[in-house]
């Protein structure tokens, strides 16, 4: 019998605010332990939380990008549980009325993964076990998070991977979070259950906690699918459990079962007023957002004539997309500019991180200049490529790198002598050509281009070569 995978994700994302959710401490990552704390985030007696409005606005942006409905009045609540990394012994979060509800994220297949809710909440500290001590670092305590809860609409590991990757790129793109999974600023809890092919009712689900990479999400889901399938095929039933994924062994391990599920005793946070937003504020936040990658992709393909894959590459990273938009504004060659970026420029960056960083020595303006030179046939495409390499290495503008000779191209006499030299260099190919092997022409052309360092116009060179060849008997 075959089983379908049913999965929903709860994704925690740290918001890119300067200060924490309820105090003015910095949210910087990687500082010395317990140096970014104050009485408020340490839960000292008598301290009170004061809501960071910037966090609410960022959460609103996330909701907007995920097509959610916004609750103009949402409530902060206390989730009570005791652990040394949670100084107040409760987390301030949202349960009954989250900030955003009912959205979706569209996968490349067109399938929509529904978003149930987005809630604003605070992060906890970190427990560090050393050889002889139990230590707590409270730097992360109170860092603003959003939890994005999806419906169980994900039905394959591939979809889960795409969902997480898309969500990550989107959140980074709109500046809501840096989503650095390795630094814990994006973490997922994955719910997995199985149902018989075509069945209506869902099976019992397990929840794999705190996954911090796309590959481990995929591995854990695969393992959990196989484990549950095995149980079901043997006629057993899946226990409702909270699991963690052991990276080294590649297996899921139970943390706690339903029986000892915690009672969080939620109630309204009396220290905070409800979060009340005006429609105007919501609109203002929406207007302050950059155009979403999906909308931009459409413009790139439909209006600028880029290929789908080019458009996808250019919209994947916000800085690149903005660089491209700027360049296109200044020249009439959108396709040429796109080609330069996705070709030569992309090859400079080895990692995703570098692509995102997109630190370049040239400006959109100088790329536009280069494209214009090509468009006006002042230089050949080949010379442009060579020049771009130099520009990228030196940060100089095209005009500074192209010599007067390059700019004017090559004189008729020069071209003639270059062509002549090319034919002499490739004497055996001349014979081939004469014997009807027209491809041999490309060899001569290649030599001419090389010798002119790209300055020759290939069309003119071709014509010249043909003329010379016709003179040879």
């Amino acid at each position, binding site marked *: 019998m075959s089983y379908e995978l049913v999965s929903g994700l709860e994704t925690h994302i740290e918001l890119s605010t300067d200060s924490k959710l309820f105090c003015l401490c910095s949210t910087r990552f990687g500082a010395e332990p317990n140096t970014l704390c104050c*009485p408020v985030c340490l*839960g000292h007696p*008598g*301290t009170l939380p004061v809501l960071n409005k910037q966090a609410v606005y960022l959460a609103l942006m996330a909701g907007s990008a995920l097509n959610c409905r916004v609750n103009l009045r949402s409530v902060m609540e206390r989730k009570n549980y005791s652990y040394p990394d949670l100084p107040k012994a409760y987390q301030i979060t949202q349960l009954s009325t989250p900030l955003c509800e009912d959205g979706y994220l569209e996968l490349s297949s067109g399938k929509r993964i529904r978003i149930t809710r987005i809630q604003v909440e605070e992060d906890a500290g970190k427990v560090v076990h050393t050889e002889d001590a139990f230590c707590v670092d409270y730097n992360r305590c109170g860092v603003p998070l959003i939890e994005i809860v999806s419906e169980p609409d994900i039905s394959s590991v591939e979809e889960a991977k795409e969902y997480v990757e898309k969500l990550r790129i989107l959140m980074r793109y709109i500046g809501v979070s840096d989503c650095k999974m390795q630094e814990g600023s994006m973490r997922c809890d994955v719910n997995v259950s199985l149902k018989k092919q075509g069945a209506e009712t869902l099976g019992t689900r397990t929840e794999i906690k705190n996954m911090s990479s796309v590959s481990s999400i995929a591995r854990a889901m695969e393992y959990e699918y196989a484990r549950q399938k095995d149980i079901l095929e043997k006629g057993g039933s899946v226990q409702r459990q909270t699991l963690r994924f052991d990276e080294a062994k590649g297996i899921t391990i139970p943390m706690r079962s339903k029986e000892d599920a915690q009672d969080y005793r939620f109630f309204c946070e009396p*220290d905070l007023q409800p979060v009340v937003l005006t429609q105007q504020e919501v609109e203002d936040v929406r207007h302050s957002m950059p155009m979403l990658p999906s909308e931009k992709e459409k413009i790139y393909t439909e209006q600028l004539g880029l290929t789908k894959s080019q458009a996808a590459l250019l919209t994947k990273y916000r800085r690149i997309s903005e660089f491209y938009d700027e360049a296109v504004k200044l020249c009439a060659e959108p396709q040429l500019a796109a080609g330069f970026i996705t070709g030569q420029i992309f090859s400079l960056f080895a990692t995703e991180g570098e692509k995102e960083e997109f630190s370049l020595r040239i400006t959109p303006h100088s790329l536009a200049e280069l494209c214009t030179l090509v468009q006006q046939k002042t230089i050949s495409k080949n010379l442009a490529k060579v020049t771009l390499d130099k520009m990228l290495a030196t940060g100089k503008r095209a005009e500074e790198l192209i010599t007067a000779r390059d700019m004017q191209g090559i004189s008729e006499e020069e071209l003639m002598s270059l062509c002549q030299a090319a034919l002499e260099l490739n004497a055996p190919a001349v014979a081939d050509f004469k014997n009807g092997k027209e491809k041999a022409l490309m060899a001569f052309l290649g030599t001419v281009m090389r010798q002119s360092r790209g300055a020759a116009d290939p069309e003119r060179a071709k014509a010249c070569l043909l003329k010379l060849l016709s003179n040879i008997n």
Partner: protein
Amino acid sequence: MGRIEYLHKLLKHRELSARELAKQYLDAIDRDNTALNAYVNVTREEALESAQKADEAFRKGEGVGLLTGIPMALKDNISTRGTETTCCSKILRGYKPLYDATAWSRLKAQGAVLLGKTNMDEFAMGSSCETSCFGPAHNPFDISRSTGGSSGGSAGAVAGNLAVYSLGSDTGGSVRQPAAFCGLVGLKPTYGAVSRSGLVAFASSLDQIGPMAQTVEDVAIVFDAIAGADPLDSTSSKTYVPQTFKNLNNDIKGKTIGIVPQLFSEVSSEVAQAVESALKTFEGMGINLVSIDIPEIHYALPAYHILACAEASSNLARYDGVRFGHRTGEGFASVNEMMIKTRSEGFSQEVKRRILMGTYVLSKGYCDAYYKKAQLLREGLSTAFEKAFEKCDAILAPTAPTTAFRTGTQLSPVEAYKADICTAPVNIAGVPAVSLCCGYSHHELPVGMQLIGRRFGEEAIMNLAYKFQQNTDFVRTADWGVRL
């Protein structure tokens, strides 16, 4: 004239130095605090230092206000930077806050001289000051009797002339009831009128810091100084700037006082008589009286206990020995065991009882029956009070059902909780009330009454209280402490 204005004149005219004044109080504390147990921590050095600063200010005639150089006391749940703030609980022994409570920092900025921290029921849970880990405070009018609570030490210190005024906190009556027991004036401000920043939370949605003193004028001066918006407290009013002191002498003729029979239901005849005669006094001053039923008051006390315990169970969960305060000695195998042992040792019976009750009423399956129902009752009561104030300008009621009881009286928890029966509805509704003395029992014990006002209507009730004080002769002082 109140005590603050009187002393201010002496200081201003250099007939007395702030340092001499502070020394007199500190010496009196040395002498009398053993008997009264009002203070749990005397800040002698700091007091003399700030008195000296006050003297300099007077000499220069710069930055001097009514509160400059006036010796005062703070309840031990109000945070004082660098000075132990224990809530009279073993679990917070040794805890020194890193910051000042907003109310205290405002007084400090005016040159207040802090004599020390005062005794209280542990975490403000109690009405007798007997759950303090430092032992009970004693009533200056009869030291075999209770000061009331939870701000018992703040009341005892002022009534025993060991401070000119003090701050307490009122969650269900903790300023007003001890004020009543000790013949003082005590104000429970509107929820949101005074910042709670730095007040160690008991029940966050009910707690308010309030001043206590011997006269209405003194309370008005202190309240005006501590009230107002605070960016550190999101529940504090952003716009309220009360001027109760300026408005004490407004004409009250033609105003209407409401009498709510439900607030007299469990009250002793002695207390009822004193309050009724106060009503006659008011009538004689040209005040109209009107009877108003608020049947919801019957549910106020249980609702209060559910809400207060629920919030307390969450607020007190942070005392785990991990970061500050008491931690159990060696002899634990895990962090969990350390936290359990610390909490078992650090909290007294009463605090544990309330944590358990609060945890219970928030638990799955009980939350709807208790906590959510209590929330509805809170809304109902607030609306009922709002409606009542359409018919009157203030409500007059007893502050406590009895006068000061003897310390050590064995009461069941439910009986003990009844001490808050007249006061808790005011906290539930979030409105202000001022308690003041309206007579004395045949044991010569003060009887308190409270004037309850509209939200942010402190000016009106303080005005009425002042006029009553002017027309009566109930401001007496016990035979302890400083005689000026």
